[in-house]
């Protein structure tokens, strides 16, 4: 048995509410971190996972304080140490890698200097040794040309590179324990897979123990040896990664795994009802009682203790866990969608659409001309049928949101036409569109915190479109609002609430209701689930699908998450650098042959399964702007065949199963290459 380097014993952390009540955020948490082990702490927002991780390096956020328990690092209690003593431990023994490295690095210091700072603080090396060490560290985190890299400023690096610098800084003090707080959350899928691969390599190479905090079971599955699942401030399940992911015997973990959309499955994931209880609202009984479908009266009154299951080497906090043993086959199921009618007419056509962010020159401005030979988005041709869900997929900078904005009329197109219903051209200027067209196309945004006016009640929010488009007032307005709330499964009493009084999922439901208030034909969904927790995400996806089936709405669904897209969409369009790469029915896009970029994206998806490892086929370079000539993916393509890719725009080829691919490689050849 290897040495335990940090152990948390019965730790409770809480705060005093305004009414003077003591409210705990962490309740009786105990766990051990062994040497060389990577522990994944997973939970939804508000589960206390970050609080626990920070306490493990002796840091407690302002306003919180430890109620009881200990955090023993090599048998010394971190929570009792003075800040002087903690300084000696942080950085040298325990180092942290923050979520957003872009914000954690000082913007006006070169990265070499910032790493040097860490070295000066934590080691006794002299100047030349330190310089050598810096390039060694930069090499270790696989940054290209470490010598010149050290002289760059943080803003000159891409998000993934910044994250690597943060890893290098954390490694500078040769820590025994690395703390990672959602280190890949803000990154693109391919970058995320690369960073995770690096972290796994470092853990193995240096023997450092890691605590990996994330909401993303996919990422956790890739790096962790052991997983701790947190819910409402408690550990509900703890054990070896494989056991937790393959045989989850706690109903929360089980539900969580079921609610993650999977690449291999068509159809929507099952959702869990309700949301996590607020801290302080749990009085007696199991904290998961309200959302559990195994719950009995016994669970309502008594709160379960963490119980050790010998055969699985797992600790579980549930009375009824036996019912979940051998249920793992059910994990791979999903709710099938009603397929839409393929004969349907086209409602929206994008014809040769190009969009440019370039600033107009003075003379061009006079003649209202946009001169940009290499626009951000170019030659987009998509026909959208009534009642279908078409998804635009791509990494950040692929122009997917840009296209959405110009359909909504928020961005002017440079070239091309957007045709709506019976080939009527929609003006690219919002002010020139008639009110009925404005009504017919509605938007739902990524972050409901930003898309709902914080100073309006739900009633006011929903009455805006109703008043504007249908001139409703008084009794009729109220009736309509209640109907809308019912549609998104919220009760009437939500009317007088403010957005801040709602949970993330409830807020997004209100945003959905607002879009449907206009009785739209097309709804543009801009990353609508990426700000939500997994279990809530599944519920929102199911709601959107239900509403679509009931009302026949058409969705244009923008997302970076291929698994979510797989779950909800009928057709998928893959974009790279504002150019279409592939388009086709979703079940076929996810099958080979596919465009090399789709192949890269599919390979980088993280599944909550330790047996499915991401395939890293392309470099995670970030390209600033699209190439002027040739294929848009030429810079990163793992299957590039030569000059033709740099010079000529590839032709569209249509595969046997109906998906169109834009590549110079013959589609049959591509199929055999990707076998």
């Amino acid at each position, binding site marked *: 048995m290897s040495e335990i380097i940090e152990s948390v014993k019965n730790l409770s952390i809480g705060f005093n509410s305004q009414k003077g009540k003591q409210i705990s955020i962490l309740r009786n948490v105990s766990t051990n971190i062994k040497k060389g082990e990577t522990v994944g702490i997973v939970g939804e927002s508000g589960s206390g996972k970050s609080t626990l991780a920070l306490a493990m390096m002796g840091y407690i956020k302002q306003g919180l304080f430890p109620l009881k328990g200990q955090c023993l690092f090599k048998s010394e209690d971190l929570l009792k140490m003075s800040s002087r003593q903690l300084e000696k431990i942080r950085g040298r023994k325990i180092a942290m890698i923050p979520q957003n490295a872009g914000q954690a690095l000082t913007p006006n210091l070169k990265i070499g200097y910032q790493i040097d700072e860490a070295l000066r603080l934590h080691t006794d090396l002299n100047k030349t040794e330190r310089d050598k060490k810096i390039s060694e560290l930069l090499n270790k985190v696989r940054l290209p040309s470490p010598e010149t890299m050290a002289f760059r400023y943080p803003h000159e690096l891409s998000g993934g590179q910044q994250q690597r610098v943060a890893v290098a800084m954390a490694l500078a003090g040769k820590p025994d324990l690395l703390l990672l707080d959602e280190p890949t959350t803000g990154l693109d899928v391919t970058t995320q897979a690369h960073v995770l691969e690096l972290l796994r390599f470092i853990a193995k190479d240096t023997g450092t123990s890691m605590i990996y905090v994330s909401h993303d079971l996919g990422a956790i599955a890739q790096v962790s040896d052991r997983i701790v699942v947190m819910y409402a401030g408690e550990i509900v399940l703890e054990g070896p990664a494989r056991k937790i992911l393959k045989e989850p015997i706690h109903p929360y973990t089980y539900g969580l795994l079921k609610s993650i959309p999977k690449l291999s499955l068509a159809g929507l994931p099952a959702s869990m009802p309700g949301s996590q209880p607020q801290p302080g609202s749990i009085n007696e009984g199991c904290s998961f009682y309200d959302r559990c479908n195994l719950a009995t009266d016994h669970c309502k009154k008594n709160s379960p203790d963490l119980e050790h299951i010998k055969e699985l080497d797992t600790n579980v906090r549930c009375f009824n866990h036996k019912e979940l043993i051998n249920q793992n086959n059910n994990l791979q199921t999903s709710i099938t969608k009603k397929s839409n009618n393929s004969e349907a007419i086209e409602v929206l056509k994008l014809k040769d659409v190009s969009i440019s962010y370039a600033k107009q020159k003075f003379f061009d401005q006079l003649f209202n001309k946009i001169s940009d030979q290499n626009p951000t988005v170019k030659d987009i041709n998509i026909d959208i049928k009534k009642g279908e869900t078409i998804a635009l997929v791509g990494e950040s900078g692929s122009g997917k949101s840009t296209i959405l904005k110009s359909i909504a009329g928020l961005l002017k197109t440079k070239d091309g036409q957007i045709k709506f219903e019976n080939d009527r051209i929609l003006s690219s200027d919002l002010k020139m569109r008639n009110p009925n067209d*404005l009504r017919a196309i509605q*938007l739902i945004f990524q972050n409901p915190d930003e898309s709902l006016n914080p*100073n309006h009640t739900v009633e006011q929010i929903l009455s805006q479109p109703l008043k504007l*488009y249908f001139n409703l007032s008084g009794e009729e307005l109220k009736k309509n609002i209640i109907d809308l709330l019912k549609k998104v499964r919220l009760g009437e009493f939500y009317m007088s609430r403010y957005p801040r009084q709602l949970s993330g999922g409830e807020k997004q439901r209100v945003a959905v209701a607002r879009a449907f208030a206009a009785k739209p034909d097309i709804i543009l969904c801009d990353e609508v689930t990426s700000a939500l927790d997994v279990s809530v995400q599944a519920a929102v996806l199911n709601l959107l699908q239900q509403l679509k089936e009931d009302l026949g709405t058409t969705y244009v669904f923008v997302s970076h998450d291929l698994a979510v897209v797989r779950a909800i969409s009928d057709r998928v369009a893959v974009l790279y650098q504002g150019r279409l790469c592939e388009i086709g029915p979703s079940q076929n896009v996810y099958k080979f042959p596919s465009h090399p970029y789709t192949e890269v994206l599919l390979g980088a998806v993280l599944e909550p399964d330790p047996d499915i490892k991401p395939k890293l086929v392309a470099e995670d370079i970030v390209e600033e702007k699209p190439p002027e000539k040739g294929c848009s993916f030429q810079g990163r393509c793992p299957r590039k065949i030569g000059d033709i890719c740099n010079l000529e725009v590839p032709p569209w080829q249509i595969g046997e199963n109906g998906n169109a691919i834009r590549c110079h490689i013959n589609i049959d050849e591509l199929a055999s290459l990707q076998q």
Partner: protein
Amino acid sequence: MESNLITEDKQKNKLEKALEILKTMASKPSGLIGLTIVLFHVILALISPYIAPYDYKAISPNTMLLAPSAEHWFGTDSLGRDVFTRTILGGRTALTVTFFGSLIALLWGGLLGIFCGLVGGKIDDVVMRVVDAFLSIPWILAMLLIVSLLGTSTEVLIPALGFFYGKGIVRVARAATHDVIAKDFIVSARARGHSNMSIIWNEIIPNVRDAILVEGAMRWSWMLLGFSSLSFLGFGVSPPTPDWGLMISNARGLMSFAYWSVIAPIVGLSSLIIGINLTADAFAKALGIDRSTKAPV
């Protein structure tokens, strides 16, 4: 009928909210002191004509420069007028003029700032440069010019002060609008096709109101000082109307032997300014605008 109930309910909520803000303001000593001072001054201004012991303009050579006594609590001035009477009456004009002056400043500065922040572009550029140009003119000189041309009546002073103190509010309102404008709920309203007026009224004002109100409260105290400076220079209200600035100006030559006639109006003026400042600070904190009070959790 039921919709009426809803609006009533909402109004009640607004009143409750206002009370709650007042409660939060009073929960800290500085806020409580500020509120007490301002309340004291406002009540005094309302009731002073009825409680003043003497006639404020009665000149009497027999009672010149008397020291404070039981009969004349704050003594008398060089013309034999009772300083206590004149001090409690002296805040009335200042309070009224500056209150309505700040209201005007808030209205035009706030609305123009919000408008510029929303439309942006060339209109914003032009308006902001004009505002900058006005900001570069020393306001007191400009005020002196206006007052000497148009007279010192309150009808002139209120809009003139309102204009000069509104320039700063334009900037604050514009900056606050810029914070809000990037949010998706504005984009959403735009995409729905709401007019600019409707966006300003429904989406922006509820979100910038607090910042502008706090700024307005601060401006009020500055305007009070400005107004008193004008009076001090002889360009404010005209004698014999009792006014703190004017009283200080008249009595400052006699400071060495009749200090009481100067100290009373000074205490009146500075206590009101301090009171307003403390109240504005507490107001900002109660609304959560002040960063230092934001919960770090």
